């Protein structure tokens, strides 16, 4: 039995009918694991604090040398890739495309290079790969990789690529980022990722501040920046002329905080959740306002200054509600549809589930675009509301795969966006107007700071957790502009000042992402901002007591007769439980007395149980990792790929006092859980085990047969129906490593 599958067995045992079947890799790995070579992983697990002998030092040095060799090879490969890429395109544009049809048929087989055939997809794929490889290369040097945010590095890569490609005289059309492509293909995954992984509870606790910043803050910024630039323009500081509506158009798109940039930078800084949700929520929800202002000023510009009526202004103001609420409504409708459809997914159709989860939010985005309402609000709302129900309806493996796929696609899109930003910086025709750029950047910073201070002062009158001065500074400093502003400015109608606007927008983006993004991390450290409370450290008792405190506060609210946020939340939970969940989830009906009124919404209890299981799993894996470290230390001479069973045995026999405790603990855990589970199983009804998708097609069919066969055996003994045992049996048949000891029954676990 592979040691990595022990957690599966334990959790199956522990969790029983809620088939929480954690994949060992998915919990412990962060995505970075995928990029490091096996030798590097070994290096990391070498515990430094154990006494290391001479052989180990030699071994380690060679491993580290191997690591740098690997990465150097990667760098060379990257360089080769770029040069091939460049020369291909260079050749492509220089020479004429060969005519596919020749008059005389070839006499013998010739190898032809069919570039036209694959051109488009080849380009796209190569871009994405290049950007991702570039990302790996940044983290070669740890200090360098941590200092600069990834987005800044990608912009630099884009600039370098742009320089290279102009040097090779590649025609512009290969790397022009069309605004349609950006808004239809690149932006939705990023924003969906944002909505799906939004911390819901923190968002709704801070909803007033988020809304205030998004609406009032953006409008304030637009008006002040626009006014400043207009009056400076009137005073004649700038080279190009523009009228009021044009400059207000520019102000509208430059004043909106950008979710893409905020995600890219804040993800790495790990600030506490309240601060993060304020900046991030503002970035998302101000899209509604930004779109309104942009289209409003666009229409006003088209109508012309002289033909404006009062009703046009009022209509503009009213359109805000329609756009914002329309977006939210569309998102809710689609969230409802998705949850409803996934309710009917059975194990035999489970592969379809991720399809719904991705395509329906995307459809909501497109529908909102078609209706000219806020598409970002639609997709974010869809993500927020469907998460809860969808997680109930689909299998756990599907949830994990959805999670990873979302992250993957969002990462790809983000890298491509920033590379293209850098590329466009170098390759587009610029009109540098230093005064305009300087005044724009200065007014962005100043007015954002003023806006944040005023709004926070107002909010602090009502908030429990007040915004301190440092919080306010972070809020002001975290207002990054990004790719959406760029997309909007490029799609502006052709006016005299457009080139200047484009240049300025790029300068502002590079300034915010580059300068502000880089300095934000050291500032967080220096100002000692409260960091993210790592969930791994939260103990079960804290979670239990959080639940408990919520209920207590609701009670007191009822006693004092005040309607507070706890009351609202409780009311929503009751509504959720009574109305929404029966419709949207296939929550299995437990046979309980219908007269007993359900006092607590099941979602709280399920959350509690899920968290409890997660923590148990994490602890078990930790104790197993301690095992592994020690066994690697002892068996450093042998190949690292040892089987789990052997490791366990060897460390136990060779163990000193250091490992005695962990093995004991592990063993106690096993036996306690298994005993309990046996008790439970013998008393309860048999539960349905469920199989995961096998590793290859053979395993898949074999498992299927096993499942139906084991169903027949079930009736004989209840013990054999223990999910842990069926799991182990399954693993035996599908096991890859030859030396597997089949373990069945509680007594088979070796006791010391």
């Amino acid at each position, binding site marked *: 039995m592979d040691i990595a599958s022990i957690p599966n067995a334990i959790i199956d045992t522990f969790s029983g009918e809620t088939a929480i079947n954690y994949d060992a890799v998915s919990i412990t790995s962060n995505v970075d694991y995928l990029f490091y070579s096996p030798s590097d992983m070994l290096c990391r697990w070498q515990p430094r604090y154990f006494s290391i002998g001479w052989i180990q030092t030699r071994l380690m040095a060679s491993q580290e040398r191997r690591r740098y060799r690997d990465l150097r090879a990667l760098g060379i490969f990257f360089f080769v890739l770029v040069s091939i890429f460049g020369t291909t395109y260079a050749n492509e544009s220089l020479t004429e495309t060969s005519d596919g049809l020749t008059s005389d048929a070839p006499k013998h087989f010739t190898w032809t290079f069919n570039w036209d055939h694959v051109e488009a997809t080849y380009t796209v794929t190569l871009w994405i790969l290049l950007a991702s490889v570039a990302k790996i290369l940044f983290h070669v040097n740890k200090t360098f990789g941590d200092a600069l945010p990834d987005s800044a590095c990608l912009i630099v890569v884009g600039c370098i690529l742009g320089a290279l490609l102009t040097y090779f005289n590649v025609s512009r059309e290969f790397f022009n980022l069309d605004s349609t492509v950006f808004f239809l293909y690149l932006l939705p995954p990023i924003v969906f990722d944002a909505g799906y992984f939004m911390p819901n509870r923190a968002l709704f606790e801070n909803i007033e501040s988020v809304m205030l910043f998004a609406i009032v803050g953006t409008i304030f910024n637009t008006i002040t920046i626009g006014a400043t630039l207009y009056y400076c323009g009137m005073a004649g500081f700038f080279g190009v002329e523009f009228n009021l509506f044009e400059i207000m158009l520019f102000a509208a798109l430059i004043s909106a905080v950008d979710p893409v940039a905020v995600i890219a930078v804040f993800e790495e800084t790990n600030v506490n959740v309240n601060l993060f949700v304020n900046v991030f929520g503002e970035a998302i929800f101000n899209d509604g306002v930004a779109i309104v202002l942009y289209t409003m000023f666009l229409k006003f510009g088209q109508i012309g200054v002289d033909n404006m009526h009062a009703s046009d202004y009022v209509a503009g103001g009213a359109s805000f509600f329609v756009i914002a*609420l329309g977006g939210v409504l569309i998102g809710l409708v689609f969230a409802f549809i998705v949850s409803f459809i996934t309710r009917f997914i059975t194990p035999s159709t489970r592969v379809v589930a991720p399809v719904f989860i991705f395509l329906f939010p995307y459809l909501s985005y497109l529908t909102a675009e078609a209706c000219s309402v806020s598409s970002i609000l639609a997709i974010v709302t869809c993500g927020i509301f469907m998460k809860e129900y969808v997680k109930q309806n689909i299998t756990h493996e599907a949830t994990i795969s959805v999670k990873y796929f979302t992250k993957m696609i969002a990462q790809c899109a983000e890298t491509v966006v920033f590379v293209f930003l850098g590329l466009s910086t170098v390759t587009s025709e610029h009109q540098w107007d230093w005064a305009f750029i300087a005044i724009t950047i200065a007014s962005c910073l100043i007015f954002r700071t003023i806006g944040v201070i005023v709004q926070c002062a107002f909010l602090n009158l009502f908030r429990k957790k007040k915004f301190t001065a440092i919080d306010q500074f972070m809020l002001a400093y975290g207002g990054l502009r990004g790719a959406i502003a760029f997309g909007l400015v490029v799609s502006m109608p052709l006016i005299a000042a457009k080139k200047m606007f484009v240049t300025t927008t790029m300068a502002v983006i590079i300034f915010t992402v580059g300068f502000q993004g880089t300095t934000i991390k050291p500032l967080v450290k220096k100002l000692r901002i409260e960091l993210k409370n790592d969930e791994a450290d939260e103990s079960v008792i*804290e979670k239990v007591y959080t639940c408990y405190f919520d209920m*207590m506060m609701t*009670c007191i*609210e009822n006693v004092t007769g005040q309607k507070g946020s706890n009351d609202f939340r409780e009311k929503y939970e009751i509504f959720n439980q009574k109305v929404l969940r029966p419709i949207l989830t296939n929550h299995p009906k437990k046979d309980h007395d219908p007269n007993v009124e359900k006092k607590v919404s099941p979602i709280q209890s399920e959350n509690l149980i899920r968290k409890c299981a997660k923590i148990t799993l994490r602890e078990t894996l930790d104790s197993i990792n301690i095992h592994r470290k020690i066994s690697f230390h002892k068996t450093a001479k042998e190949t690292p790929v040892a089987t789990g069973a052997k490791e366990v045995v060897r460390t136990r026999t060779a163990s000193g006092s250091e490992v005695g405790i962990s093995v004991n603990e592990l063993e106690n855990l096993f036996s306690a859980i298994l005993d309990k589970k046996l008790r439970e199983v013998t008393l309860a009804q048999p539960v349905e085990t469920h199989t995961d998708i096998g590793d290859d097609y053979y395993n898949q069919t074999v498992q299927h047969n096993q499942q139906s066969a084991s169903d027949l055996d079930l009736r004989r003994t209840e013990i054999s129906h223990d999910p842990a045992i069926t799991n182990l049996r399954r693993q035996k048949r599908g096991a890859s490593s030859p030396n597997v000891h089949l373990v069945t029954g509680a007594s088979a676990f070796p006791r010391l």
Partner: protein
Amino acid sequence: MRVEAYFIPTICVFSYLLISKIHIYNGYCKTARRNMGTIAFFDIMGSSLSTSNERFKELSAQSGLSISSIKMLNDRFLTLATHQDKTLKEPFMTVSDFESIPELLKNPLGPRLIDAFFAVADAEQQKRVYFADFVRVISHFRPIDKNVHHPWNSREAKLKFAFTMYDLNKSGTITKDEFTEILKKMIGDNVSAAKVDSIAERTMRETDGDSDGSITFQEFCKAMEKTDIEQKMSFRFLT
């Protein structure tokens, strides 16, 4: 879409928002009317406005709440308290008064909270909560003012209150059974007893430092040191 079409959804939204708030206003009107009634009644009974002001000041000094909060609590207390002590001419609340609050019974911790009120109040077995006791319990939930330290409203006092809600027999420790019972109430009936038991056991194992089978107040405090109790256990409308 025509420009005027924008107005219709706007009007719909606003009217919905207004209508949803009306029931709250109705509630306030009802309580105000009831207050007027009871205050008139007590005026006849002889307690005048000036002495109640003094009482408020005294309570405010004692509990640390502002006078406006105390007035608000007084209004609420008078709507809830239907009994009156004849000798002291003081209204008090009994268990039935608490149970007349509809939402309180639906909450699993409701009965426990009611017991906690009486536990704080009572020296004798009379099961009466006077206004002073009411204020005292509620003052635990005031947001902590970092500049002004108050014994009734410190982090330790809040934790102590939370602790006593679990430990009603005032033994000073929470045993596994008490904890399991609370957990069962919180989680509901959908979960099997074995699961609740395992969670309870797990929690006890985490908190119980000296493994004596029960959680003392110090162990409880230590387990809660990362939680932001000051913010969780406070109301912003209590100043």
